[in-house]
């Protein structure tokens, strides 16, 4: 096993991540405006940007899902209990004592078990919840009417509840970037794609022979 810098986040994954980041920020800001938490935007601007960003994000997700399936990248998110407790204990106690992170990134397992299960929950639960409620909200005039009573309020409230959860995720996500050696070191892999990973001899040989641009 050797520690090498390899291409861990390919170009599409980085494009997906940062585009999604920008869109989610716009959505949170405009969404909270639509919900009446702030009035920094006109309602028309907020709704137009919110709807437009949401439609672009949906399209991006279509591509991202396609990418996960066709490239097999989905395997990074298969949940595992192996080492989960260790990572959790690290963030609860070990980190304060200056211990080393217990997880070692692998070529086909770039997320630690806690990360993997968090991202899986985000992708399988939070994101679908926000876009299903969002589409219901957007298409209100097709199903809502005089008899639907409070249902639009419920859709709005549920949509907002999930927006709070995503906002909380964003906060934790950004905070965790500070838990490494440096914030920059933690962010760089998502910018240039390269990160240090422990490779098996076979993986190293494969990369050097077939993907020389993906290993440094």
């Amino acid at each position: 096993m050797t520690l090498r810098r390899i291409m861990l986040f390919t170009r599409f994954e980085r494009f997906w991540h940062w585009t999604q980041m920008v869109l989610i920020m716009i959505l949170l800001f405009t969404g909270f405006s639509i919900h009446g938490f702030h009035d920094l935007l006109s309602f028309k601007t907020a709704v137009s940007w919110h709807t437009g960003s949401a439609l672009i994000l949906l399209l991006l997700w279509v591509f991202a899902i396609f990418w996960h399936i066709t490239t097999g990248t989905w395997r990074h998110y298969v949940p595992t209990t192996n080492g989960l407790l260790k990572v959790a204990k690290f963030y609860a106690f070990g980190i304060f004592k200056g211990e080393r992170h217990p997880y070692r990134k692998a070529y086909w397992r770039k997320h630690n078990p806690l990360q993997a299960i968090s991202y899986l929950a985000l992708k399988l639960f939070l994101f679908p919840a926000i876009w299903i409620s969002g589409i219901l909200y957007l298409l209100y005039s097709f199903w809502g009417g005089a008899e639907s009573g409070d249902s639009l309020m419920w859709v709005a409230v549920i949509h907002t509840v999930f927006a709070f959860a995503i906002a909380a995720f964003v906060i934790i996500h950004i905070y965790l970037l500070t838990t490494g050696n440096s914030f920059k070191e933690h962010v760089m892999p998502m910018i240039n794609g390269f990160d240090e990973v422990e490779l098996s001899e076979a993986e190293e040989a494969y990369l050097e022979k077939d993907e020389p641009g993906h290993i440094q």
Partner: protein
Amino acid sequence: MFIIGNRVSFRLALNLISGLLLLSLALGAQATDELSQAAHKIDADMNFRLDKLVEKPTLRSDSNSTADHTKFEELKDPFMSGPEVTKACLKCHTEAGQQFMKNIHWTWSYENKKTGQLLGKKHLVNTFCTNSRGNEGMCAQCHAGYGWKDESFDFNNENNVDCVVCHDRTGTYYKTPPTKGNKSCSVMFEGKQPIQWSKVAQNVGLPARENCGGCHFYGGGGDGVKHGDLDSSLIHPNKELDVHMDEAGPNMACTNCHVTKKHVWAGSRYDVIAKDTEGTGKPGQRRDVATCESCHSASPHPVNSLASIKLNDHVDRVACQTCHIPTIARGGVATKTDWDWRTAGKTKDGEGYKEKNYTQGNGEHRATYKSIKGNFKYGENLVPHYGWFDGQMIYTTIDTKFDPASGPVDVNRYTGSADDENSRIWPFKQMHTFQPYDKGYNTLVYMHLWGEDQDAYWGNYDFGKAIKAGMEKNNLPYSGEYGFVETYSYWPITHMVAPKEDALSCDECHSKEGRLKDLEGFYLPGTSPDHGIGRWLDIIGLLALAGTLLGVLGHGLIRFVLNRARK
């Protein structure tokens, strides 16, 4: 040569004669102008258009008549009265009289088939001068007929129909009250030039804004008083005031929307189509509705942006008027918002008087107190009152009993709600009044306001006598004791449609203190739930977010402190 020369001199003579004729006509017009100004000075606040000349008649741009009425021999008679003119009209327009007599401008009576209520000016009590019934000697100056003074008027004589009040295109025709009234009032209508019946009869055409407006702009006793979206500023409006009637633009006349079928008009506030899902209908114009949708369709906004698409999603729940008439009384003419009859009847040296302490946008002074009517308040650029409206109005009629202790009485009340699919949010002008009622029987009253007799309020300033006479005249019971009751009335708003740039922005409603904040039964995005579980979930969400932030900050702080301790 000789013949030609003779013809030239003949033409010269003809030109001279017609020139002189024109000159005398112009001088005559000037004279009548001065006279009308003199009448104006007596009481500028009365200013019925019916009562004065139109300085500049509007042009109807859509006339496609195939007849020139100046060429008809039948109209060259020296007519001496209105019915004579009508008789001549009906010689050719054989069915017009019978057709017209079916319509509300003639009957002043309307039976609402859905509620069974008998409506129309002949029956109703309103929140302004309260009742035309029994006061026809004054009020019937706006009846499209000749000589309705009292019960004896013949509603079956088609020669009594007043054709020219609607069809006069000279701007010189006028109407005065059918009877003289008390001297304090009659003075306002004296000293007028006689009507030139033949000239008027020969210059008829489709009604233009000043024809309809002659009455409809002056409802409630003066310019703009009643409706707020109908006043004399609409005779020559600009685009900002009314995008359809804009004189420099489409220059539309009332009847372009209030389409006519055999002298019956579409669009009545007694039977409002609050939601038109039919839109433009089949090819060819719909002749039975005056709705916006009948021209603009049920999806009127262009599908060229996300916001426009969303706007079309509004039409099922929000009337076009709600966004496209941002405010009413925008043309420089004020509308009356408050009327307090309680203070009426004060005199100075035994004479009635007026105080004119309101100056409206066009510079005219409006009465804030009149002995004959009480105190008034006015409004301009008014934000309308909004409500869910299904097109139905319920009236407090003369025989409706109410409980004055249970708050203000709605003299007319609109029905509708968020959970009714036929209701939409509509704008209304709300009128607030204190008016006399029968304290014993708890009903509204008919007052005898106008007359030459001792019982008329406009003369004796005695409510007791006026109410007693008003009720007796109609064989209605009166307890003998009157009081004043607080009332509201509601007038659906549909005119003074602004250009699209001036339509309401989304925030006018979609915000916490928005225009619809008093409406209930639906969720309005942009306002955030203000009660119930929705409100609680918002609070929990915000707390959770704050908790997360505090959590990571705490986690970070402990890391920071312990790291330093280790070093």
